Every structure is written in C-alpha cells, then in structure tokens.
C-alpha cells in the first residue's frame, strides 16, 4: 500500500506551551471572537430555523417509504416478499392475495411497515424487482404520539407522491 | 437571655453528638454526629467572643479533618456486613461509665471553683484575628514555634510512612 504518511510535529514541548495559560488565552480569544460576532448580529449564526425553514433534501435521501402505482392506478407490488426477506430489522409484514386485474398473479392484501422498527437502510428498495417500493416520499420527520400510528398500511403507503421527478430520482439511484 | 439559651442549646447538641459518635453502629452516622459536636463547639466559641477560634474550629476540624474522615469512609465503602459484631457492647458501656464516674466528679468540683462567667459579647476586638495574632507572636512565640516543629516532624513522618513501598516476594 502506498499510503502517504505525514509526520506531524508534536506540539506542547516548548516552554510557552508548557505554561498552558498562554495557549488557553489564545483559545479563549478564538471563542470570544465567535461569541461577539454572533452577539453583534445574530443572522451570522450557522443554524437553520428548523420547523419554519425546512432542510433541502437530495433525491438520494431515504425518507418514509411509499408504494408506487402503475399508470392506471393499480399497485405495482406483486407480493414477492423480496423486501420482507431482505429487511434486516424485520419491519415489513406482507400478506399476499389473488390478483384479479390481470396485471400479475399476486398482489399484497396487507402491506404493513412498522416505522418504529425500520432503520431506513433502503435494502427493501434495492431488493424490489418491480420498483414498487421507494423511499423518495420526502418525508423525513416521522413522528407520532402513540405506537399504533407508527404502523402504516397500504393506504398510507400509496398516499404520498414522489418528492422528485423521475429523471432526478433515476440519477440518484444510478 | 438569648445568649444563655443558645449556650445551653449548643452545649446539649455537642453532648448529643458525642453520644451519637459512641452509640451509632454505622461509621457514617458516627462521623456525622461528631460533625454536629464540632459545629456546636464552634458555636460555643462564637458565643464566648472567640471569633478566630470559631473560624479555625470550622475550617480545620469541621471543614478539613472531618471531611477527610468522611472521604475515607466513602472510599472504603463499608456495608452492613463489614461491620464488626459488637458483643457485650452494653457491658463495655457500663464499665466505661463506672470508670469515668470519679473523673466526672473531679471535673464538677473543679468547675465549681471557677468564677461565674457571662456569655455576652465582649467588645474591644477580643478574640479577633489581630489580637490573637499579637498574643501568639509575642508572649507565646516559643511554644508556637515548638508546636510548628512538632507538626513538621509529624508531616515528615507521614511522608516517610506513606512513601515506603516494600516489594513482597
């Protein structure tokens, strides 16, 4: 391995550094500079005023899951159980049923995700052969005041549209 | 009037604290009751206008020495099971009372010969830092220096004892 090794000179050997106090005053000068810069004009703060100003998220951001639909509005998922099998935190619970609309043979009767268990790893998205589950809903704040609401079913999963257009998303995935 | 009441109050507290030191089984309880004794003694000094002695009693005994003792008790972390079983404790107590009896009578006789005192605050800076310092460093200079040498010897002895590290085979 041709790793570059850079030998850094060890600080703290000279007399003035051994005195500590001088170095401490130097450090304090740095911090108080920041303090007064922010005190003089608090628009200098490097913070986002979160609930009002939302952060920008990229197409690769893994937000809450959604189930995608065909053009005609039928569900893409064919209940192949790939995502459920692949899920490391075992938060996906699918119940398969007969499909009558002719798109495929199977469809999920129940598709539940326990968001309290989910670790947002995105393996379900990678495993899906039908591009039926995606994490591009753009919902990054998943909160609830009770456990029941964190268990979401098909209705909630097909509800949000994708937060990005198809080209952007494909670029992010590719 | 208030002074006399306070005097009796603190006197009672100091006796109770000393009793607690002897009677409590757990070392922490004993140490804490001894702290009460030391504080009430300091308050007695304050009532007798000995301001400097009051402060020094609090700083040295109540503040430094007793907190070291508490520190050690905490360090050893003694549980209920580590305490020795004190068999015949009441027997020893009775023996102690019998032994102390004559001394107590002697003390009482000695105190009776003392002139009656007042616990009112004495003015003219009696017992202040400057006054005690003047007396200590003029009339009592030699004893003071001898005592400080004694303390120094004790300090050196402690360092020697603590510094000795014998390697066991």
């Amino acid at each position: 391995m041709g790793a570059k090794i850079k030998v850094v000179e060890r600080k703290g050997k000279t007399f003035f550094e051994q005195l500590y106090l001088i170095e401490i005053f130097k450090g304090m000068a740095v911090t108080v500079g920041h303090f007064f810069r922010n005190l003089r004009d608090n628009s200098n703060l490097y913070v986002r005023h979160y609930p009002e100003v939302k952060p920008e998220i990229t197409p690769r951001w893994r937000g809450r899951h959604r189930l995608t639909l065909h053009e005609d509005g039928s569900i893409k998922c064919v209940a192949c159980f790939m995502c459920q099998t692949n899920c490391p935190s075992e938060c996906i619970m699918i119940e398969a049923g007969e499909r009558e609309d002719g798109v495929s043979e199977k469809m999920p009767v129940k598709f539940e995700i326990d968001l309290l268990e989910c670790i947002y790893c995105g393996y379900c998205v990678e495993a899906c052969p039908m591009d039926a589950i995606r994490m591009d809903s753009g919902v990054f704040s998943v909160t609830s005041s009770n456990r029941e609401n964190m268990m979401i079913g098909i209705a909630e999963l097909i509800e949000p549209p994708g937060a990005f257009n198809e080209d952007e998303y494909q670029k992010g995935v590719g | 009037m208030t002074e006399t009441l306070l005097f009796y109050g603190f006197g009672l507290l100091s006796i109770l604290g000393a009793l607690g030191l002897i009677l409590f089984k757990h070392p922490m309880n004993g140490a804490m009751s001894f702290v009460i004794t030391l504080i009430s003694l300091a308050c007695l000094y304050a009532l007798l206008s000995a301001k400097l002695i009051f402060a020094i009693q609090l700083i040295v005994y109540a503040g430094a020495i007793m907190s070291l003792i508490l520190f050690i008790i905490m360090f050893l972390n003694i549980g209920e099971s580590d305490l020795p079983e004190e068999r015949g404790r009441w027997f020893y107590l009775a023996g102690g009372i019998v032994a102390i009896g004559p001394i107590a009578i002697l003390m009482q006789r000695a105190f009776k010969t003392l002139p009656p005192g007042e616990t009112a605050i004495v003015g003219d800076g009696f017992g202040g830092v400057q006054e005690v310092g003047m007396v200590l460093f003029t009339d009592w200079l030699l004893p003071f220096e001898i005592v400080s040498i004694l303390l120094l010897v004790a300090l050196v002895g402690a360092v020697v004892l603590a510094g000795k590290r014998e390697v066991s085979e």
Partner: protein
Amino acid sequence: MSLLDILLILLRIAFGAFVPLSFVAVLVWMERRGAGFFQDRAGPNRCHVMGFRAGGLIQNLADGVKLIFKEDVVPAHITHKFYFILAPMLVFVTALLCFAVIPFADVLVIGSKEYIMQAVPLDIGILWFLAIVGFGVYGIILAGWSSHNKYGVLGGLRAASQVISYEIPMGLALVSLLVVYGTVNMTEIAQYQGQLLFGFIPMWGVVVQPLGVIIFIIAAFAETNRTPFDLAEGESEIVAGFHVEYSSMKFALFFLGEYVAMFVSSALIVTLYFGSFQIPWFATETLLFYATEVAVAIMVGLPIGAYFFAGWIRKNNKSHYDRPNDPRRREATVYIGLLWLMVMLVEVVLLGYLVFAQNGIADRLLVMILQTGTFLIKTTMMCFVYVWVRWTLPRFRYDQLQKIGWEKLMPLALLNIFITSAVIVSFG
C-alpha cells in the same frame, strides 16, 4: 433599634439571599445562550409567554416548572435516606451562606451611624468563606456515598478529593493577599482597593498580586467543579457523577447550588482581586464630592447607551425567515418601549435628586446604588469568564488535575507568599 436600622438589616439580608438566587436564572440563561453563541448556534430561544421570549429567559421558567412537577424518586436501594435528602440541601445552603460576608457597597453613613453593607456584618470575612466552603464538600461526599451507586461514589470521590486538594493553593494564595491587605475584613479589603498605586493605577488585588490572582482563579474554578475541572460529572465516563441518582427538585438543588457557587466565587474573586464595589479612580469620598456631576453624567450617558441598545434589539430581534407580519418585530417594539420607559424613570428620579435632595443622605444613597451596580456588573463579567472558559477548554484528565494542584499551584503559591512577604517587609 430605630425603624431605619431594621429596614437596612432587612435590605442587607434580602440582598444576600435573593441576589444569588435571582442570578441563578441569569447565569443559566447566560450559560445556554452563551454556549450557543460560542458555538455559532442560537441556544434556547423558543419558549415564550404570550409571544414574549425575553431573549430566551422564559426557558428558565419552563425548566423550573418541569423540575418542580417531575416525580421525586428515592431509589429503593438507598439505605441512608436521611443523608440522601440532606446532601443537596447542604450543597445549596453552603453555597448561599458564603455570599453573606461579601460587601456590595461601601459603609453607609447615615447621621452618626455606620451601616456595613454585608448580609452578615462579620469582621472575620474571608475566614467565614473558607469555613463554609469546607462544608460544601460534605454535601458532595454524602450525595456520592448515599447514592450507593458506583458512578455516584466515583463522582463523589473525585469531587471531594478535588475540592480538598484545591483548598490548599486557594488558602495559600489568600495568605499572600492578606499579607498585602493586612486585614481579613472584607469591607476593609474593598476599601483598601480604592487607593491608587503611584497615584494613577487603581490598587486592585490583580495589580498587587498578579501571580496570586491566577492561582486563586484556577483554584476557584476547581472548587466550584466547573470546566475544565468538572471531572466529578464527566458524562463520558461516570454518567453524571454524584447526582446520578437524583431527580426533580433534589437535582434542581444541586443545579442551583452549582450556579450559586459560581456566582459567589465570582463575587469573591471580584471582591478580593478586582476592586470589589470600587469604580476605578472614583473612591467613595471622590464620588460623594462629585455626586452632582456624576448624576448629570449618568443623565446624559444613559439615553445614549439606551439608544444603541435599542438599535441592537431592533437589529437582532427579528425572524430570520419570511414571516408575514413578523411577531418578533412587534416584540422588539415592546422591549424598546420598556427600555425607554425605564430610562425615563431613572432620569426622573435623578432629576428629582438634583432639584430637591442634594447634599445629604441622598448623596450617600446614590453612591451606594452606584457601587452596588458596579459590584454586580463586575460579578456578572466574572461569571461570563466562567461560561467563556467552560465553552473553550476541554476537561482535564484526573491525574493532570491533581498534578497541577499539588506540583504546580502549591509551590507557586508558596513562592508567592515568600516574594510578597519579602517585598512587604523591605518596602512596607
């Protein structure tokens, strides 16, 4: 005792008891917002009552309500419940008692009577402080020990050994200071610092004892268990140290005690080394002599200061994002209105003083208020140094801490005593 006597005694005791307590709120606020600004973030600024956030001070109210209504748990494994409950009280009460001997203004002379402006007019001053500080250790030891928890015991051990070992350099630094001042009485110490060295430098402790002030401040930081010496609550190693088992108001008492101790030690540093209530170059007599001029100067200076302060509020109290009909702007308007109202009030009082009540008790009262204000401002600045150091320096390692205390500070303090005594004996 006349009515005036009783009134002044009440005033002094109220000052000694309530000023440290109300400063706790200010200090917590200063610590949090200060921490925010030091680290380029905002700090708590959302809590509000009817839209008024008072720059984040309302957060303290929310915290207080939370701490009061939390469940007060005494864990079942604690056998010595008495000590467990006693410990936070001790920490808090000892911190508060230390403030009792600190003078906040010069001796007030009314008629032929003199009133010493300390909560408790003791003339053993600094010795009282040393005595009471020693008791603070009991609280920590008892808390750590009675928690019956290894983190608690470790934290208690660390805190206690730290406080005990730093009391020595602190005491030695004080010795050389007392050699200079020649008294232990706090009011006399403060009066001494009103003199001028060579006729133009204020004779503050920091000028006559430059080495002593460094030793004393370092030792005071260690005494109050503040960063960089807050090993007692090293979160990364021993969770929270001696208060790990405490909840609700018992924890709050530790918290209050910490901040009161910080305030008191700042007040002590100011009293001993930074001129106490003395305004530099304006000793009490000078102030009394030029009382009229000083009052006029305040009357002129106050509106100018208020104008700039109002401008600062206007600039900074606004929402930093698009918000229709910004409520924070309206808030700022109210604050600025209040500010001008207060300025008007002070101006009216001073005008009344100038017109009606010159040359009498009013002069002395004016000087007393000025000195109290100076003392509080200096103490607040010292507290800011505490906050500043806390958000600048990392924590020491435990062996480094003891090494600095015993191997560096103590010989330095002894050297300082030697030099000071030599100088005093040869020149004094």
